């Protein structure tokens, strides 16, 4: 009944000669372009849409409403820390003085911005227990890259060049092995035991002169705290390797345990998780790296330094000749860093500690409530960290209902689905992370939805397989998407 335009593409709205005229500068006489050789000129205008301003506003406003978002729904995606993104951070980062600053503006015209960044560096050192921080990586994965590249640079600087392997627990996030390979390493997976801890004996066996380092997160992606962290650190360090901390799960321990104190040599943080900057439907993020003393010379540039007289300046290759270098054209996702700075200032010391506490409280509460209605925890003997894993292996076997079916059905209850099928080692799993910013009522509603869905799964499993029913589209055909690639619109 709703009209055709609903999900038309912007290209379908186009009509030759239509324009959003207020946005276009006046056309110039062709002779003002005479300096550009005709041979280099485009023959035909690109087929961008020709639409009015109202059409654009209406199209993208309506499109946006076809999204779930933290601002609208509970969004308990495990490992993603979908907490409230303060609107105040957005306003502060969008101040004209910040938005208009050219990245290469002279330091004389950058002291305000540099002051924020310098302080953010200091705050991150303090909460992680590391000795140096560079804010430049543009997402978690680039932070990982920077971290592993520093490990490599460290070994190379010591001419310790037999180290060709990075150890990674099998539960790790996909970016970990992908990063190791991008840094020229081979990946060796380390098994995880039934309780979600690393198999320490296997790890010890894997360590050796070929070991460049170990990448892990703690609490791990199993949603539990790795209790043998001391033993792990010892094993790796004794083999001459370094310890990398994937900070995606930092939210769980913020203010409670510091990676630096656990023996990690290098860490990246996902500010778009722990520091509440928005995900924007896929990005941008920011993945600052922190390092122990011995890795400081290798930090990626630029970094903000403070002079004796209190003035701030960029530290670059001149100051850090051993740096792994520049990872972007300028210095990373400044606007994200400013949002994180805002958040850090509002939280302050006490607030940071509360993040770890209340995110852990919420996860353990939700776990217990879900267990009580019949869900199966993957690690029933363990405390949850800020997230936890359920497995629907039983439901899958007995009812033919998969974790994906349950996930899709949750959308009909106006609940975003948790992360599904990750980590890979737990079959038919949900990784659930409620965060500290959701009310108890929101958690209870999720439990109620799950309870209702489990009943549906018993009474009418077909219902779940057809889900969702309430969204703009029913379940999508991923196989067709990959087989019959349709990646750009063609009018024909």
């Amino acid at each position: 009944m709703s009209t055709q335009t609903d999900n038309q593409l912007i290209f379908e709205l186009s009509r030759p000669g239509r324009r959003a005229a207020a946005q276009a500068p006046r056309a110039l006489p062709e002779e003002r372009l005479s300096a550009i050789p005709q041979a280099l000129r485009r023959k035909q205008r690109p087929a961008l849409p020709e639409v009015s301003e109202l059409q654009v506003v209406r199209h993208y406003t309506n499109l946006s409403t076809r999204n779930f978002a933290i601002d609208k729904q509970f969004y308990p995606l495990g490992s993603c820390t979908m907490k409230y993104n303060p609107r105040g951070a957005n306003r502060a980062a969008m101040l004209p003085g910040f938005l208009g600053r050219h990245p290469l503006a002279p330091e004389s015209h950058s002291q305000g911005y540099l002051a924020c960044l310098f302080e953010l560096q200091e705050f991150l050192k303090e909460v992680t227990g590391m000795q140096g921080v560079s804010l430049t990586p543009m997402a978690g994965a680039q932070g990982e890259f920077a971290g592993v590249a520093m490990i490599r640079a460290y070994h190379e600087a010591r001419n310790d060049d037999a180290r060709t392997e990075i150890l990674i627990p099998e539960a790790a996030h996909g970016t970990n092995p992908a990063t190791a390979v991008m840094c020229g390493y081979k990946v060796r997976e380390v098994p995880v035991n039934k309780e979600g801890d690393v198999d320490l004996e296997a790890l010890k066996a894997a360590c050796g002169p070929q070991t460049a380092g170990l990448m892990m997160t703690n609490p791990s992606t199993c949603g539990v705290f790795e209790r043998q962290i001391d033993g792990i650190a010892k094993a790796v360090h004794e083999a001459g390797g370094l310890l990398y901390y994937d900070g995606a799960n930092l939210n769980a321990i913020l203010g409670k345990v510091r990676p630096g104190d656990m023996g990690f040599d290098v860490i990246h943080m996902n500010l778009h998780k722990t520091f509440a900057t928005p995900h924007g439907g896929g990005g941008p993020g920011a993945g600052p790296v922190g390092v122990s003393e011995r890795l400081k010379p290798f930090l990626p540039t630029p970094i903000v330094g403070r002079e004796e007289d209190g003035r701030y300046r960029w530290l670059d290759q001149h100051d850090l000749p051993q740096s792994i270098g520049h990872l972007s054209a300028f210095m990373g996702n400044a606007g994200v860093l400013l949002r994180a700075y805002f958040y850090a200032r509002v939280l302050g010391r006490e607030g940071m500690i509360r993040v770890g506490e209340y995110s852990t409280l919420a996860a353990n509460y939700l776990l217990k409530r879900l267990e009580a209605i019949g869900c199966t925890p993957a690690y029933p003997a363990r405390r949850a960290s800020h997230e936890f894993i359920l497995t629907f292996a039983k439901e899958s076997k007995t009812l033919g209902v998969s974790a994906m079916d349950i996930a899709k059905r949750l959308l009909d209850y106006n609940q975003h689905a948790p992360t599904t099928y990750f980590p890979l080692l737990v079959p038919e799993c949900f990784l659930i992370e409620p965060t500290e910013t959701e009310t108890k009522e929101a958690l209870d509603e999720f439990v109620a939805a799950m309870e209702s869905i489990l009943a549906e799964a018993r009474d009418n499993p077909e219902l779940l397989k057809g889900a969702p029913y309430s969204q703009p589209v029913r379940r999508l055909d991923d196989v067709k998407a990959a087989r019959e690639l349709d990646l750009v619109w063609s009018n024909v």
Partner: protein
Amino acid sequence: MPFIPHTSDDVQAMLAAIGADSIEDLFDEIPAHLKAGALAGLPEGLSEMEVTALMAARARQDAGALCFLGAGAYEHHIPAAVWEIATRGEYYTAYTPYQAEASQGTLQTIYEFQTLMARLTGMDASNASVYDGASGLAEAVLMALRANRKSKSGRVLMPEAVNPRYRQAVAAICENQNVELVSVPFNTAEGTTPVAALADHAGEDFAALVIAQPNFFGALEDVDALTDWAHAQGMLVIALVNPTALALLTPPGEWGEKGADIVIGEAQPLGIPLSSGGPYCGFMCCKQQHIRQMPGRIIGRTVDLEGRPGFTLTLQAREQHIRRSKATSNICTNQGLAMTAATIYLSLLGPEGLEAVAAHSHANTQDLVARLSAIDGVSLAFASPTFHEAVLRLPKPASEVLPKLAERGIIGGYDLGLDFPALADCVLVCATETRIADDIDLYATVLAEVLA
């Protein structure tokens, strides 16, 4: 407790459900000696009002200069609608669209972005963004190495006229995989990279040639000749382009006989604010045959159970969350929101509008160059045609002149001596459609005084 909703009643009820006495109990699996102290190095928390006032004062400190810097980041007019829509909660606070049915807004927006970029560049396919132009160029180099199956050398030709910051990032990212970036000098009279400069490398094994259009000096390369030369040598062509310029210039898909193979660029000029360098948005396009070597997220159009069209992540077997160590890249989070802004921007500008922006930028830069080179001792450094940047030679080192301009509120351009010792008396200047005649006059007046 900023942002935490729990009342003490809530906390008691939650602990009771858990069966714990205190929140601290929940951390009982953590070895006691590892527990953190008081975080004494952090300040007390402040209210939104206090932090806003603090940041507003700092933002004001940095504002107000008149800027003629380009060098990879360009100040264009951004229609108000762009960010008023992009910061709607539905776009701003959604995650990566893993649950496709609940993310059609973001997914369709990406599909439209892919189409826009493919049309602008003349290529077959696009991804959903990479971090920025510089890191994206590194991804393009790695992609070319995978895609050019015939080449075994791990070597890529990298002209010196490519933005030095881009070259640095490519080096930092690629050298871990033993990629060798071989420099190609530029012609010091023209500021371009003629085919002649490549002649030495004829017959050698390179996976790809990078061609920047316009190059770092704003100069326009003979892209057809370069492309054909590279293809004749069995190299792939990586085009590094400015998206605004593409409204006027031949799209990479039409360079030479066969067109470029991979296109990379910085989408920042398309509605993304300068914002101190980020978040920006790398865009990446390629020919159909290379699509499976593309890094990053790609959206495909498909149908749902009822046959209605819809959008979903596709070709995920290239990505880290499926393929782990065998992925084409480790990229996960990308620049989604900036991509959304670029999509809205291009829709608002349309073909004529984008062309007018490009034309005004070109014309204003022409005017700027004419005004400034009329000053005694100032001259154009290179003879080549340019798009919206140009190199001026000053009678003094740029490092002396630019600070004096800055004192008078003018950010006069980029000091090329930072990267090219031979160009220590040269500045790279830029004027987009936002630098109007009055601005240009003011620059000319102040520069004349500073040089006098």
